């Protein structure tokens, strides 16, 4: 299991994350919410193993990430960064197949099947064969999501722990594809026992698709619980500095629906 214990991180000599403890449990989607600069991306970078903790620890299967080779880590966790741009243009198929680079043992036949399956899950099957640069920002995001799904699912033994880290995956997607993507993540967690962490800005998307929500403010964890427990007016004021009405969702009993009020001035 991927978990952070009393994690602190610094960037450019400034502490941006302090005393964060959380675990990515198999079969669960953990949403991360917070204002700009609250430390969401730093948390994701630390969990991905690209940023060394200043103190505390990030461990996978009880071993600190620093003890894992990049290759071994890539076989157990996949990361979708914000809008990567290609230095030189490639075909969509080539981009998606990159997800299997950590798995040299995967034969071309099964890889083609997996790539097709991933493109379907990302609702991007019709983009296969296009040039990556010819796609819109949202379409590129879905293709990158398919690439990460290939990495997540390739050569996976039944019940093997795999973690998926998504950094604002819905940022450039239309509402329909925001739902498609988060539903795909949620189903992968339910059906395959994948452990997912999703950084989001849309509180209501998080309430709808995440099993737990971690609220970050000023680099500290101010709440970590089920959406209904954590999304309170007091918490939201602490995180965003905004007053909010927290209602019950008209169609999903027990699911909160958040309406923010415009700040005075």
């Amino acid at each position: 299991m991927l978990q952070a214990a009393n994690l602190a991180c610094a960037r450019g000599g400034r502490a941006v994350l302090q005393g964060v403890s959380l675990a990515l449990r198999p079969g669960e989607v953990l949403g991360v919410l917070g204002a700009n600069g609250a430390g969401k991306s730093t948390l994701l970078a630390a969990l991905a193993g690209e940023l060394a903790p200043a103190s505390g620890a990030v461990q996978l299967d009880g071993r600190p990430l620093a003890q894992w080779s990049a290759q071994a880590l890539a076989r157990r966790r996949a990361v979708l960064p914000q809008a990567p741009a290609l230095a030189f243009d490639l075909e969509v198929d080539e981009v998606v197949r990159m997800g299997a680079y950590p798995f040299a043992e995967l034969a071309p036949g099964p890889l083609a099947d997996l790539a097709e399956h991933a493109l379907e899950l990302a609702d991007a099957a019709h983009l296969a064969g296009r040039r990556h640069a010819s796609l819109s920002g949202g379409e590129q995001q879905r293709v990158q999501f398919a690439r990460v799904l290939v990495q997540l699912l390739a050569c996976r033994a039944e019940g093997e722990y795999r973690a998926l880290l998504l950094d604002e995956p819905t940022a450039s997607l239309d509402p329909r594809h925001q739902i498609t993507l988060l539903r795909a993540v949620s189903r992968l967690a339910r059906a395959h026992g994948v452990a997912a962490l999703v950084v989001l800005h849309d509180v209501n998307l998080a309430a709808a698709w995440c099993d737990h929500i971690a609220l970050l403010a000023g680099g500290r964890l101010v709440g970590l619980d089920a959406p209904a427990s954590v999304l309170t007016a007091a918490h939201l004021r602490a995180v965003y500095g905004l007053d909010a009405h927290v209602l019950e969702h008209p169609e999903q009993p027990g699911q909160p629906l958040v309406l923010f009020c415009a700040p005075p001035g």
Partner: protein
Amino acid sequence: MASPATPRRRRPGRAAVLAALGTALLVLALAAASNGAMRIPFSRLPALMFGAGTGAEDALWRNVLLQVRLPRVLLAIVVGTGLAVSGAAMQALFRNPLAEPGLIGVSLGGALGAVAAIVLGAPGLAVIAPSAFAGSLAATLLAYRLGGRSTGVAGVLLAGVAINALCAAVIGLFTWQANDAQLRSLTFWNLGSLAAASWPLVAALAPWVAALSLLLLRDWRAMNALLLGEREAQHLGFALAALRRRLVVLVALLVGPLVAVTGTIGFVGLVVPHLVRLTLGADHRALLPASLLVGAIALTLADWLARIVAVPSEVPIGIITSLVGGPFLLWLLARRGTA
């Protein structure tokens, strides 16, 4: 989304393209070997190479072919191969279409080593070449050490620019101090030439370049992953620091000896991978081997031109590659500007 499937635009298969390029290289090599200050009939090549043919003319032709032309054409192939595949690797590492092997100091460092040896009175290639190789490695090591401290490759790139400027200045100092005879030798280093070609040289360089090129070719996945970004390559399992070190070391070891033997030959490492990328796409699985072959073709062609445009004298090959490569790069930039 229910939009209809886009028809797939098929690129020519990798194997077919490589086979076509290989055949083109073979034909070109034979043509270049038959042509020069003295013309050897193309049809006589097989007989001359494999020992048949005993006329008085045949003996002369065979001598020219075997002792002069073939080593020279083979050296062009070896050097072109090494420069182009190194250029492709540097462009992948720096994620920049304008990167080339010289960027990490390997070319000007080598030229500085050679120029220093010449002006300080070295007798011949036996001293100049090792000095050039030492200069290549020292400059690259310095650029890598100074630039490698920052995260990302930008540091190495900037350090390379600084080291290159420094090398150019010291070369200028030596040139200013040189006498007329030395100036003549210096021209060779600054403009490049394959005139040093010989069988022992080809026998030493060919396996070296082949082995190091194969090691670069093996890294095609890592180079593709770098297209996504450095973080993304790391997420896909490529340890960035180790990868950067490996690519820089391989390129320095590959290009260093070439510079030592031929002087600085510009633009091949820059333009060839670009040309291949425009036609075949950026997938390094195809880009690297195709660049290797196109590099060999380009330099064979350039050396052929260098030998025949000003018979009986030779034009330095660096002038030919830059004369063709310069306008090509300008055209490329113009195209990017309008795109």
